[in-house]
């Protein structure tokens, strides 16, 4: 081969490596960007007057008089619409059956779409479901619902080679030649007066309970559930893990037993998370019966087994990183082995152990599969500490899954899903950041 070609290959080789790393970083950015941007939209968004109504009526937040003033204005702006509909209904009642048949269905659909957008019409019966009692609370969702009022969705199956095509038909065409035609342009132009959009920071999203399966309110029960599960798991895993690490590094001799222990620990680390979940169900709940059915306790126990290998490894590494001179100095001063471990080695290894603990905490907080059968439920109240022994809890990780796949109106609560993802990911990232900083300080100190 010519030297030039060899050089070219060399460059290409290095380039491909750099490219791989750049791709990895890009993947990270592409992953995190939507979570952060749209997740922030759960907290900072343009809220309508309906949002302020929910806040006042459910959480006693906001200025009642001011809101009542706003509602007066809103009702005045909405009045022409309801008047138009009432007039038209009157006219239909007076007209013949053919007319009624022609306009009956479109009118019903229109009223339904309007109710979704603006809430129930004044004077109508209060609906059962809370989601039907209020109009759209978010301006971005209101725009979507406005389109539903203005246009009717139809599916065109005329081309058999492709699936159905979505066609938008203006509703105004259904009412061509009637006074109702004027409703649509009026609605489109005056929607902001009917909903009074305003930039809002809804930070209570993090501390509010949710209403009507997450249509309203925040994600506090989920945050609290994740917190309980994580801390419960760490409470069990830390003592076990640190003691095991002390034994493995300071006491055990290189025997067959030690090899067996190590193999078991790495096997435990390799067990798929869903198998942990099944094990938790079969052992902690069905056999030990730590609780009648799913509970935070059972979930925390399962999670603690899962993070145990991580804690052991991290603690082992941290203890091994303590320089040998420390040990020798302590032993030469007459300290016993346990005394050395307790007063010299553990304090020196503490930051390293903490790093491992913090990383495992992130893992425990984000894990879903082990808690599906042992602890998680989709809707629930925030639990008090003693209730964690017997009751199941919602948790961020599980509810992200649940809201994104099993919720009855996935698109309506998209912002809640993103908000949960944002909270979970930033929790985990903060924990990891703490670990990275801790480790940097440790390595600096050990080097010095």
């Amino acid at each position, binding site marked *: 081969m010519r030297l030039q*070609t060899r050089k070219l290959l060399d460059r290409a080789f290095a380039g491909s490596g750099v490219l791989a790393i750049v791709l*990895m970083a890009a993947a990270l950015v592409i992953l995190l960007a939507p979570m952060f941007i749209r997740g922030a939209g759960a907290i900072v968004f343009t809220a309508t007057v309906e949002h302020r109504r929910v806040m006042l009526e459910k959480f006693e937040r906001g200025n009642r008089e001011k809101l009542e003033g706003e509602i007066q204005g809103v009702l005045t702006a909405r009045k022409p619409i309801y008047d138009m509909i009432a007039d038209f209904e009157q006219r239909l009642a007076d007209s013949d059956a053919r007319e009624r048949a022609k306009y009956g269905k479109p009118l019903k659909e229109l009223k339904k779409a309007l109710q979704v957008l603006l809430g129930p019409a004044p004077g109508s019966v209060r609906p059962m479901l809370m989601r039907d009692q209020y109009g759209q609370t978010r301006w971005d969702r209101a725009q979507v619902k406005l389109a539903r009022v203005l246009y009717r969705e139809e599916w065109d199956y005329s081309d058999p080679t492709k699936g159905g095509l979505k066609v938008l038909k203006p509703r105004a065409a259904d009412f061509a030649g009637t006074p109702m035609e004027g409703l649509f342009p009026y609605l489109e132009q005056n929607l902001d007066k009917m909903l009074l959009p305003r930039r809002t920071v809804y930070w209570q999203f993090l501390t509010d309970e949710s209403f009507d399966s997450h249509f309203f309110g925040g994600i506090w029960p989920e945050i609290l559930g994740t917190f309980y599960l994580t801390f419960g798991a760490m409470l069990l895993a830390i003592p*076990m893990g640190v003691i095991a690490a002390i034994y493995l590094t300071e006491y055990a001799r290189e025997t067959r037993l030690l090899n067996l222990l190590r193999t078991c620990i790495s096997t435990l680390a390799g067990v798929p998370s869903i198998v942990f979940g099944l094990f938790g*169900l*079969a052992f902690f709940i069905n056999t030990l019966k730590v609780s009648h059915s799913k509970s935070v306790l059972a979930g925390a126990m399962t999670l603690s087994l899962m993070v145990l290998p991580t804690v052991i490894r991290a603690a082992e590494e941290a203890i091994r990183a303590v320089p040998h001179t420390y040990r020798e100095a302590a032993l030469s001063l007459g300290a016993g082995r346990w005394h050395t471990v307790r007063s010299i080695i553990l304090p020196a290894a503490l930051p390293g152990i903490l790093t491992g603990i913090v990383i495992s905490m992130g893992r425990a907080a984000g894990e879903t*599969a082990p808690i599906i059968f042992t602890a998680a439920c989709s809707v629930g109240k925030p639990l008090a500490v003693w209730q964690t022994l017997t009751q199941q809890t919602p948790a961020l990780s599980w509810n992200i899954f649940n809201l994104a796949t099993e919720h009855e109106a996935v698109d309506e609560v998209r912002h809640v899903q993103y908000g949960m993802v944002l909270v979970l990911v930033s929790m985990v990232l903060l924990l990891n950041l703490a670990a990275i900083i801790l480790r940097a300080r440790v390595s600096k100190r050990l080097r010095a």
Partner: protein
Amino acid sequence: MSEDASVLNRKRQERPSLLLSHTARRRQRLAAAMGNGFLLAVTSLSTLAVLFIFYFIARDAWPFFRVEGIKEFFTSVRWYPSAENAEFGALAIFVGSGLVTLGAVLVAVPLGVAAAVCLSDVLPFSVRQVVKPVIEILAAIPSVAYGFFALVVLAPLLQQSGGPMLGVAVWIIGAPVAALAIVVVADVGTDKLPDRVRPSVRWLTICVLGAGAFLGLMVAGKALTGLHISSGTNALNVSIILGIMALPTVVSVSEDALQAVGRELREGSYALGATRAETLLKTVLPAAGSGILAAVILGVMRAIGETMVVWMASGNAAQIPSPWYNFLEPVRTLTATIAGDMGEADQVTGSGRYHVLFAMALCLLVFSFMCNLTSEWIIRRARKKVGG
């Protein structure tokens, strides 16, 4: 004699000594033994946990194998666990797991090994300090967040413009690879020719092969661009995401393996006049081969054991794609089946549906156990070889 001894004994007892009395020493020894025993007991809790996991999963899987036998489970594709005459043919589910794992490996291994090589031998130390946290964060992001991304962002994207994206990807990956290959082939092929004609023949070869490669890429790109993707939740989507999730494992384990290859080998190779690429490809990578194999195995374990991503974004259709390598069809994996069906299976009384899920879990468990043992064995052997 005996008198002397007793005097000596008395003297020894009278002398103030560092040694403790007999009882105190015994007490201390007992305490040490007990402490040691306690530590050992706590440590063996993890062993106990592993044994218990195997026992409890196997215990609940056993009724299934006893009643239904093995043959249907592993060879039939008819998966109707809730029907009147329930059928538990899990072959399609095994294939689904295998397929997404294969896809994840295809994504993670080339990228991961290239990144590891770059980290250990190409980049300066300061850049490495920046890249390391990126890898760690990639490893730390919860799987449900990956799954959410796959379902909410990637799946609609694939469904709408997956074809054109694949077409562009073929060009981005194919064009540089083809160009390099052509240059090398032309170079090697014309090595033996006389000096006079060599350059012109080489250029001719490059032009001819280049035109061929261009045409080939055009055809492939066009075919992929025209591809209709009926659903964004398919094996391709999951493979990409699982590949990204397995990347950190692959990178860090193979980087360790590359670091373990000593300087001497590298310097020897450089001294013989090899370039960096030649050194790495012909000397370092073969020497680190077993470590990289271990990295691949660990990556496979990560991918096959992952639940949330595949549950959310694989489409969950219990069928073998036709042809089997068609990554654009939805698949269903073992983990997703366990997670999805357990809610519907009767959790307490233990129906056939309940036990079949434990049978799947047992398969997963045994597989990951074997993988683990293999990778440990490989790493230990490699360490011995390097050490010796």
